[in-house]
């Protein structure tokens, strides 16, 4: 598994994602850049230019017609995926932490940060095929209750629900239309750093600075726990094999004093069911901030604090490997 090192960011990566077809890989970084790459070759295809602050989160719709980004410049933008043209800009009162399309891409979620005297808000906006039809007023705005703010990550669940991870380790579930809290539960003892759904949307994985990642069902029951000895910044669920991938490492603030060996800037592979670690992929020399897996499970990408993206195509060995005879 020789990785492709993608150089296109000058500052730490914040997010990497694949589109649903898996031919493209998108990345965002603290250098305000939002790039798109060929997931097969690692070639830089283009970028969505316009943000003036850290791009915290990005999303691609199911047909790869449009992309979306949220930035610390207090705006969320809608882009034409092919041309890279900015179609629409939502201006917010504070930096944008999370953005996400619904599967139908008729709605989008924008979560803003509790910063600059502003509360953390969740904004539901409508997306129209014709950009001119997008109403200026959002469909709904609600505040995740004070004790749950700030939210660090938010994703759409099924049936217009929203799942959020919070700074205090809580995971919560909301009704997007009414803004009502359906459930919330203290899952982690540290900041929730990432939240990614399984392929069929029936469960999701959260990662946290508390050095663990957990699989939760939609009712917020902890199904699986993956314990490590370093903060986990991101975690994803492999679609084909019963695996999860955890990315992390020693905190960025301490990185200057540690070597890569001590920092453990590694992608760790765990068996999803047995919760056993069976492999690690080294290479980054800063903590891994974000990981994503190809929708077909043929490759995975990690983005590091050092500004590099490493795109790994799995070897045939990986698909033959079985930790347990019941493995697919």
């Amino acid at each position, binding site marked *: 598994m020789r990785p492709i090192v993608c150089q296109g960011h000058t500052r730490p990566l914040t997010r990497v994602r694949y589109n649903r077809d898996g031919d493209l890989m998108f990345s965002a970084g603290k250098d305000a850049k939002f790039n798109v790459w060929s997931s097969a070759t690692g070639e830089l295809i283009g970028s969505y230019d316009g943000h003036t602050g850290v791009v915290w989160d990005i999303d691609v719709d199911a047909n790869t017609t449009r992309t979306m980004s949220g930035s610390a410049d207090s705006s969320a933008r809608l882009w034409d995926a092919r041309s890279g043209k900015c179609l629409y800009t939502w201006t917010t009162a504070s930096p944008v932490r999370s953005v996400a399309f619904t599967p139908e891409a008729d709605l989008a979620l924008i979560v803003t940060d509790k910063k600059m005297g502003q509360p953390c808000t969740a904004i539901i906006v409508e997306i129209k095929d014709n950009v001119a039809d997008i109403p200026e007023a959002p469909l709904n705005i609600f505040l995740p209750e004070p004790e749950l703010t700030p939210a660090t990550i938010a994703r759409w669940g099924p049936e217009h629900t929203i799942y959020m991870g919070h700074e205090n380790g809580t995971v919560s579930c909301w009704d997007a239309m009414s803004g009502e809290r359906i459930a919330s539960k203290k899952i982690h003892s540290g900041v929730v750093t990432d939240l990614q759904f399984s392929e*069929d949307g*029936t469960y999701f994985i959260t990662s946290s600075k508390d050095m663990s990642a957990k699989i939760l069902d939609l009712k917020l029951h902890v*199904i699986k726990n993956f314990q490590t000895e370093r903060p986990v910044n991101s975690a994803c669920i492999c679609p084909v094999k019963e695996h999860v991938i955890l990315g992390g490492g*020693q905190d960025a603030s301490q990185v200057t004093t540690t070597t890569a060996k*001590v920092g453990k800037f590694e992608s760790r592979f765990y068996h999803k069911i047995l919760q056993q670690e069976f492999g690690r992929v080294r290479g980054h020399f800063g903590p891994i901030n974000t990981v994503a897996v190809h929708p077909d499970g043929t490759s995975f990408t990690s983005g590091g604090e050092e500004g590099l993206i490493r795109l790994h195509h799995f070897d045939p060995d990986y698909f033959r490997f079985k930790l347990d005879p019941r493995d697919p």
Partner: protein
Amino acid sequence: MAPALNIDAIPLDIDLTDDAALDEFLDFGDIEEQYAVHVADQFDTILVIDGVPVVDEGKKEKLFTVIRKQFGKEGVHVKDQPHGFMMPMDAATGKSKGFVFVDFATPADADKALKHLQYFKFDKSHTFFLNKFADVEKYAAVPDQWDEERALGKAPEYVERGFLRDWLLDAGARDQIAVFNKTAVSVMWGNKANGPDVIHERENWTEGYIAWSPRGSYLASVHRMGIALWGGAAMDRLMRFHHPGVRFLDFSPKESYLVTFSPEPLPMPTNPAQPWGPESAGHHVIIWDIRTGHILRSFALTAEEIATKNVPWPLFKWSFDEAYFARIVGNAKLAVYEAPGMGLLDKKSIPIPGITEFEWMPYTPDEDEAAAKDGGKKKQQQNKRVQAPPYTIAYFVPQTGPDQPAQLALMSLPNKQVYRSKQVFFGLSAKIHFQSQGDYLLFKVDRTNRSGKASFVSLEVFRLREKDYPADSVEVKEIMVAFGWEPHGNRFAMITTSDVVSADLDLKAVLAGAPGKMTTHIYQVEAAVEKKGASVVPGGVKLVKAMDRKAVNALYWSPKGRYIVFAGLRNLQGVLEFYDVDATAGEANTATVTTSVNGKTVTSTKEVDPVQLLAATEHHGSSDVAWDPTGRYVMSSVTMWAKGMDNGVMLFDVRGTMLYKHSREQLKQALWRPRPPTLLPKHKQAKVRKNIKQYARDFEIEDATASSALSAAELEERRRLFDAWIQFRSRALLAIEAEDEIVTVLDN
């Protein structure tokens, strides 16, 4: 506090409103005690002085004036007349009775008088005896009949302590490990595989740290108020030792005595919870009897130790059988005490001007008697080895002047005879290392050349099992980083470096220079061989092997000898190198090598290196390495003191194969439980060693069953996990289907 009312003792017909009648049945003793007027508080300026000249009324005033004057010279002031003196007169003779009550100006004056003017020589025929007025009453009130229960309180009921060596009965002969992390202490079995088994785990077991006693019977926990000892099968608390602010503790070798040190001086005892007497006030060190929990003696620190806050620990070094313990006092005297009497040997310290170091010899009697008892008379050694006197102290006195070289000496006790000594020129300081059985003694002497410019180390090795205790000297030009005798063996290992900086364990210097600038050495001490009819082949110290460029700074011999681990601790990346230093054990150290040269087969003999590297591995950041007491396993640990993360222990076998890794957040200590020495005599041990294969077979079978049972359990657990997952998935999928159906219904 309510008076104690004994209801049963009250007659039924008593009138409860009649106070006088009721009083008879009520015990107001405790109230009376509580509100009792303490006489001492009132009369603490008054002393009774005995031995005063007998005078008549006329000379009374004159006597008072003289006493006042004399006391005044000593800085003690008596109250002005008419209250200063009160002298009872004998009405019959008109003369005084030879004693006088003196009222001093302040209680401080009275205390001072009591301290300094006791046995005051008033004149040629009169010596004063001073007593506190209150004391006279107190001692007069002592009952003539000795009532033990009243004096000492009721003897506590006998409590069974359980079998303190319970852990030695483990069928698998496993050893225990005590681990202190975060706030919890756990005692666990150090298993061969699959991590340790926790036996006891308690939160806040200790406030400071934990320590095992030298034979493993007790686990000591350190608290603000003192030390607690735990032991037995249930790890119950066996004894508490009240010593406020205790910082260090030290056990005597056979676990009879406990020495504790607190930086806080002991206060004047004011309540029975403080077990020391007034004579201990201001002392810092206490020696306890572990079995009874009683204080045997307390010790003050020297003024210098208090001033520099530099207390050597352990303060006392014990002889092999705890019969004596000793310390150096002010680089001038060696104070040797006897146990359990706790008195100085012959009531005085041994003057050895300039002494800086000393060490007791570990004494192991030859087992001839034991062997003889077991019917092994024939095996009695024909050439009985020399045995140094059992109570031997080796000490070092550095060079004091140009003509007074440093002295290395062996002194026997209790006769205080120096029976072997050696002079070393320009020896400035030394460390003394005895081999575990007391067969060899090594002084590591730091020396300079005559000009004092170049410094080097010389190793002075004494062979204590040979006639006249011959000595050899080895010079080491480099800086010595670590040293160790092979237990039960005749080898010693050391690590040296030519680089001054890396001696301070500086990573950068080591990395900048080379992979490592350390050199490891293995030496062997050889005895003189006396051949029949031939000359004596002199013995000596021989270098077996030196290995360069190693990144190691510590060495650990197996407690059984032969195997050694060199470790690069802390900044040196946690390198662990396992060596067998006797790879040719029992065989000739040459091997026949057959090589084929140009089609011809050539047979040659080649010397086999006795020092073989078994494994080089690493435990990143490890700060501590310890062999288990049987020499089967090596545990390396990363503690929070050395590194903030990845705390935990790794267990290796003798060959350096990692058995498991066990993570523990905020690990503070991980300690093997020591074992007492074996009770098997040597020839029986030899028998076991001879039949080791037979024993091993049983254990191998056990191991095999254990591992297969374990994998069965693991398989079961896997099955459970898979089943649970499949259930979870099918529930989730059913829910989706149900929703789809609803949606379909609604759509229709």
